[in-house]
């Protein structure tokens, strides 16, 4: 938790510009950081852009996932959002052992792949928190197990938000599991 605080404080400006950060319920789970996180994640849905229907995993990018996360955070879970979550989950579960290989085949840059999978992990956590549907928590845990989604520990601005998100995801998963175990 301390390293997370440090990461947030040292990079506040860069983080406040990012669309990658977590949105839903993190302040609730991390009360000490609530105000800072709330300020950092104060983005709004881009109403000028329609969210496309899910066709395949190649079309997934950080913008789309962050938009879906915003819809979820704003209680706007409609059939399209549900389908996105359901189909992304299915893709990851069915192709789990060949995800990295498929990313290479799709020609995605390693940096983008890392960002996308961290976004997806956050999406599944947030969808779980909103719906209590535990299959999403299960897949988020599996995404966390993928060693290649861990952002490199570099000070490159491009990775700061991803590193923060990764750390938050990891800690929130621990917290959720603790709660389930002791409920």
């Amino acid at each position, binding site marked *: 938790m301390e390293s997370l605080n440090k990461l947030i404080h040292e990079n506040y400006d860069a983080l406040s510009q990012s669309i990658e950060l977590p949105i839903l319920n993190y302040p609730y789970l991390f009360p000490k950081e609530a105000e800072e996180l709330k300020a950092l994640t104060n983005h709004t849905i881009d109403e000028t852009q329609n969210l496309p229907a899910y066709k395949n995993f190649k079309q997934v990018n950080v913008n789309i996932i962050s938009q879906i996360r915003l819809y979820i955070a704003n209680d706007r879970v409609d059939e399209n959002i549900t389908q996105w979550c359901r189909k992304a989950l*299915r893709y990851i*579960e069915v192709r789990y*052992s060949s995800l990295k290989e498929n990313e290479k085949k799709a020609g995605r840059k390693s940096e983008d792949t890392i960002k996308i999978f961290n976004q997806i992990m956050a999406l599944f956590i947030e969808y779980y928190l909103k719906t209590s549907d*535990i*299959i999403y*928590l*299960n*897949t988020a*845990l*599996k995404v966390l*197990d993928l060693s290649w989604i861990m952002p490199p520990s570099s000070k490159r601005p491009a990775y700061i938000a991803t590193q923060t998100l990764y750390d938050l995801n990891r800690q929130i998963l621990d917290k959720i*599991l603790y709660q*389930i*175990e*002791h409920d």
Partner: protein
Amino acid sequence: MTKSLIVFCPNPYSLYTNSVCELLIRRGYTIDAIVIKKFTITRFQNEFKRDGKRLLKKIWKKLVLRDTAYTGEAGSIVGFRKEKNLTIKNVEDFKKHGTNIVYCKSLNDAVVEETLKRYDEKLIIFTGGGIIRKNILDLAGDGIINCHMGILPRYKGMDLPEWCILENRFDQFGLTLHFMDSGIDTGKILQKVSIPLGNSSSIKSLRNRFEPVMVDSMVNTVENYLRGELEPQTQPTGENRQYFIVHKRLYEIVDKKIARHLGIKVKD
């Protein structure tokens, strides 16, 4: 016209396959053929991709320990076999009952197609061996009956007893006997069987209690279907939720949830 019975089998020592076949023979049916999926490197690789380290445990239990894996566990398939005096442990032994034994690398191989083409009216009993493709489904006669470890249409996929617990649906354990089709557990339903948690205090003991019920349910369903007493029911189209393998960290919680449900004190 009498239907030929063909059994798909995951390995020659499967207690489930051997028990189902022996009980059917005892009830006066002939098993025309048993098709056995051979254990090959490719099969290991494919199943390892799907199941990971759990496959090693499964191999140890099913192929190495076999019935000794169940020693001391009440309500297991070994106790059931003892109670019913079931003695056959290797499907090769069904040859003496006139059963044709066929080995294949995959249940979708040409050798399986050729075997199925030899029988006109037929019913296939699936006791394991992986996904069945269209080429085999098209040659399956009345169809392939599977005993699925969850109550359909809600619980499709894998690890369903664990998922019931994780969803706090302790009254939803059970089996569904259904015809296989090209989807995952989407075929027509023949019979549903509920299994209460009872006094099973772990997922292992609960799962062990499923196995004898699976044998009994499969034999009864086959018999009732052949008598014309069961009408296959199409599943509702809206239910397309699927469950996947439970992550090890959630799996660790499953036994604690059972204990809490039963009012047993849990150590943290």
